[in-house]
């Protein structure tokens, strides 16, 4: 019997994106540049996070025409890269719309203005897979408990500053390492302390990893940033504003793709880091107001 939308099928697509770069794009032209550069997937948006941050106001799901335009442009040029799109935290109707449009992956994203301050989307109800952001293991396991098929660090989107993505990746991998050392009788209390489902805590202790792929996002701007996240345990990298807010997006996009493949080889990294022109200007997260942080959205 054929079964669609099983957890294995959802996680399967996340597995296929490993070792790749998922690039934010806002126009069909950008989507083609990203695909040509070797993006493993594209994230179709109306505005990249740096612009959302600058413009303020309520950030919502993109106009379906923007997403359709990107899907069509890729198909016409025979690129078969998966297309992702963002829904607001808790906005399950936006997610239903994206699923109905044939989007391949939904990002329930803190980059958009949350629609529900208490509850995330029940992602088990969907056939389309979801990715969610997390700053620590408890948050990651809560999202997986709700049905997320992929976790990414939140980092600080639109900042061009990798420090928060590093903090979140180290927090998740550090917590995982600690869990693997715990005796079984401590797991229930650990689940309580993490605010995470017991079964998932037990899985992490036994396997030393999350039950879904663990990617990096939020502030990655250079090939070296991308390789750093891979070295810290990320299995793939999202680049949001970092490509199309830079001076030479096509060259930078290719360089970041190469860096994610050859992240353990500093000679290749040196080669691809040369002559990229200016990176996005960026914002120093340590100088930002608490209220301007996107990463504190979601619970």
């Amino acid at each position: 019997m054929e079964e669609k939308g099983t957890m294995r099928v959802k996680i399967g697509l996340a597995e296929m994106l490993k070792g790749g770069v998922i690039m934010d794009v806002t126009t069909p032209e950008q989507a083609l540049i990203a695909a040509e550069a070797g993006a493993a997937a594209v994230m179709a948006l109306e505005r990249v996070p740096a612009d959302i941050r600058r413009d303020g106001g309520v950030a919502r799901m993109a106009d379906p025409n923007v997403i359709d335009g990107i899907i069509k442009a890729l198909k016409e040029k025979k690129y078969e890269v998966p297309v992702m799109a963002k829904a607001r935290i808790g906005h399950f109707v936006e997610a239903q719309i994206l699923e109905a449009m044939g989007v391949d992956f939904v990002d329930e994203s803190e980059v958009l203005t949350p629609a529900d301050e208490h509850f995330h989307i029940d992602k088990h109800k969907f056939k389309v897979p979801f990715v969610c952001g997390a700053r620590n293991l408890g948050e990651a396991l809560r999202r997986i408990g709700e049905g997320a098929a992929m976790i990414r660090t939140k980092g600080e989107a639109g900042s061009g500053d990798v420090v928060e993505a590093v903090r979140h990746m180290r927090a998740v991998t550090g917590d995982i390492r600690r869990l693997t050392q715990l005796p079984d009788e401590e797991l229930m209390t650990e689940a309580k302390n993490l605010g995470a489902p017991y079964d998932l805590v037990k899985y992490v202790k036994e396997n030393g990893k999350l039950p879904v792929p663990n990617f990096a996002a939020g502030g990655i701007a250079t090939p070296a940033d991308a390789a750093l996240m891979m070295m810290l345990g990320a299995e793939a990298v999202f680049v949001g504003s970092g490509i199309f807010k830079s001076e030479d997006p096509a060259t930078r996009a290719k360089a970041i793709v190469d860096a994610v493949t050859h992240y353990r080889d500093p000679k290749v990294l040196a080669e691809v880091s040369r002559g990229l022109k200016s990176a996005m200007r960026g914002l120093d997260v340590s100088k930002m107001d608490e209220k301007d942080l996107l990463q504190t959205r979601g619970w």
Partner: protein
Amino acid sequence: MGRIGALALQGDFELHIKMLRRAGVEAVEIRTPAQLDSVSGLVIPGGESTTVSRLMRRYGLDKAIRERYLSGSLAVYGTCMGMILVCSDTEGDHDLAQLGFIDATVERNAYGPQVESFESDIVIDSVNGAGPMRFRAVFIRAPKVTRVGDGVKILASHAGAPALISQGLCLAGNFHPELTDDWRLHKYFLDEFAARIGD
């Protein structure tokens, strides 16, 4: 049998390496032509075909894999994207680094968007001489074989389309055994393909 590699440019190569190790062989990641020298078999995993094509060309791996294969010193198993790359043609006009080891045409992403991805039981003809084998096949944005040449063996089909095919030293399937706990197909690749390469 020598070591087996998994092409590690992009995709789910780690899962293949795990399966190969469970099937009892030493398995390594392959990112450069030099690393290819140490293996007698290569798994090309699932992933994004445009991404992997560009990286293969940039680092000379398409040429290196083709040379090794044509000299008879390398067996190859392609899954999903890997199947696209080992076949000779795709429907439509794509600039992919296809290796042409199997005389067949594939249509990329033939089942539609991810919500149409599925898992299903298939029956594989006589693997390891054990008679027909039921296998849980996971299809993720899968390609579909639309034509096979005369020399191509069809080992399993799903809904009328070939799902597992072989020619010479090459095996290819449009589904993902590495997403299950079932390593019988990896074992089959080792026993019936990689084992034919002299050490």
